């Protein structure tokens, strides 16, 4: 058929513009929405980017990439080098050790429940999405030190990747590597700890755990005779991480004095009131993710509790919630402290242990696919 009439051609153009979407949709890779994925209702709603939905194909690809040493320049380290499942995707080091063998200034963060909480990643919030984040460690000289073009060539030479990419996205390129890694990480949901079971009504907490829970969720008010550990002021109730709205999930919890403060969030926003603010990390699986804080300065949860109870350092951006929460009548004027008793500190630690999710750290869906294949 020949198109020889301008009017006809014009309407054809309009139609193609209007309905163009349909043709592209037809050409797209056939993917299947992720099966069997759910999260507790108390976590709240979640969204994924419109151009990167959760699909079975993307998860399979992302999981493989996450565990593949090809992602590093030396072909020796994968993401899983610093994010190990048995440690709730941390590495147990103060500062992570990557390609250069030089310890990083920062402690590896747990990768869990990433679809909720702050929509900014890294301790200082410098990355706005998991897609954007995913390529950073690959290229970083002290982490994986890999050239992306080289990586793409390497992956293109592997038959299994040709198939996996074709099924999940189409082309083997940067964007699709990032999308797959992001998708796999979004599936890392921890929601079967004793605390979750307690919330679902299928487990009961011991007396000391329950005392700890109450202290965890209470902002103290001596006038109303309420004692509290204040934790929920920053570590949200069910997710136990920072808040998701704007930069509300970043704060200064009194680790350093004014002259020692690192830029933190200020490096991203440029605002002086953001100096020394860091991402409030999730406390899920916290018993497994030592050492603690952005620089891994505390080895134990006892030290963390000592920090909140008697180690707070003051600075201009220190959270007023920390200074104000002191559990004593007219105590505002003394050095900031929660003034908790030893049994109360122990109770909070007991509660923190109820956040460990054994199913999460043994879930086969999150484990190393290469090891699995070797076994077969």
């Amino acid at each position: 058929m020949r198109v020889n009439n301008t009017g006809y051609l014009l309407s054809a153009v309009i139609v193609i513009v209007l309905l163009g979407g349909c043709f592209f949709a037809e050409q797209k890779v056939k993917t299947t929405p992720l099966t069997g994925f759910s999260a507790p209702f108390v976590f709240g709603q979640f969204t994924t980017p419109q151009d990167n939905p959760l699909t079975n194909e993307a998860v399979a690809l992302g999981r493989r990439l996450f565990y593949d040493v090809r992602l590093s320049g030396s072909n020796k380290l994968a993401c899983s080098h610093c994010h190990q499942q048995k440690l709730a995707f941390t590495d147990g080091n103060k500062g992570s050790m990557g390609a250069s063998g030089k310890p990083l200034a920062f402690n590896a963060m747990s990768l869990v429940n990433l679809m909720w909480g702050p929509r900014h990643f890294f301790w200082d919030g410098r990355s706005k999405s998991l897609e954007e984040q995913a390529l950073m460690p690959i290229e970083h000289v002290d982490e994986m030190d890999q050239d992306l073009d080289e990586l793409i060539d390497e992956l293109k030479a592997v038959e299994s990747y040709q198939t996996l990419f074709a099924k999940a996205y189409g082309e083997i390129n940067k964007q699709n590597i990032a999308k797959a890694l992001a998708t796999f990480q979004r599936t890392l949901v921890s929601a079967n700890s004793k605390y979750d079971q307690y919330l679902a009504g299928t487990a009961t907490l011991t007396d000391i755990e329950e005392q700890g829970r109450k202290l965890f969720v209470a902002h103290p008010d001596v006038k109303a005779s309420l004692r509290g550990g204040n934790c929920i002021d920053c570590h949200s109730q069910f997710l136990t991480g920072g808040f998701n709205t704007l930069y509300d999930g970043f704060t200064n919890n009194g680790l350093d004095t004014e002259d020692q403060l690192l830029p933190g969030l200020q490096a991203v926003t440029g605002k002086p009131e953001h100096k020394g603010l860091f991402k409030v990390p999730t406390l899920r699986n916290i018993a497994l993710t030592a050492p603690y804080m952005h620089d891994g300065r505390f080895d134990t949860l006892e030290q963390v509790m000592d920090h909140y109870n008697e180690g707070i350092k003051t600075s201009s951006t220190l959270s007023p919630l920390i200074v104000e929460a002191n559990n004593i009548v007219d105590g505002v004027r003394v050095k900031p402290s929660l003034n908790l008793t030893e049994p109360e500190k122990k109770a909070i630690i007991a509660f923190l242990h109820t956040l460990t999710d054994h199913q999460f750290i043994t879930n086969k869906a999150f484990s190393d696919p290469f090891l699995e294949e070797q076994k077969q």
Partner: protein
Amino acid sequence: MNVKQRLPLMALITVVILVMGIYGLNWYKQNAIKTLTVNFTAVVGDQPLVFNQLNYQNPGGPGLFKVRDFQFYISNIKLISADGEYVEPDSYHLARFDNDTTSYAISLDNIPNRDYQTIEFSIGVDDTANGTLTSKGDLDPNSRMAWSWDVGYKFVLFEGGLAHDNTLYPLVYHVGFDENYRTIVNDLPHAVFENPQASVQFKVDIMKLFNGKADLNMVELPSIKFDKEDTRFLADNYQHMLIGVTDR
């Protein structure tokens, strides 16, 4: 079917869409569904709100205070006319002002065309929503406005500092509890909907939060959270914190 074979069919579809569009536009003009923007701009007394600056006089005592955070829930917005009400669905908005214009805007869409006289909304969260964990509108049980399961949401959150005696004292005012839910009714400006970009303006005076039966002295009462009498004092004050900028 390939692209070329589809062309005649698609040309027909285009024509149908265009015709429907023209008719639809006419219908729309006659039965116009309205939109309304409700704007809130924060001030502190007669000064503009600047966050993190020790600019403001302690309302009932010595020292200057600063605002680090200020947020509150506006819920259950209604427009009332003689022949019916418009009720916004899932009407829970967390108003915050940490932006360039220190203002917060709510857009109401799909408002049936009526001669509305008044706008009604509340500060806080109604007891039904305050007693559940369901996320609706800006209600989120993992948000910083959530307290703990036993007590529901904070309605108004103010955090900051007071400089006095060469020391910076923390200020923490969190008000929740069902009994502190306060409803506010205001006249709508005359013929507000004649403007296609209809809007109403409210001034939010943070100072009014502390001005009531007495003016709050931040040195004596730097924090209010659970004490029933103190929270009621703040609630009675925030009832008058919004000032409608109308022409009636």
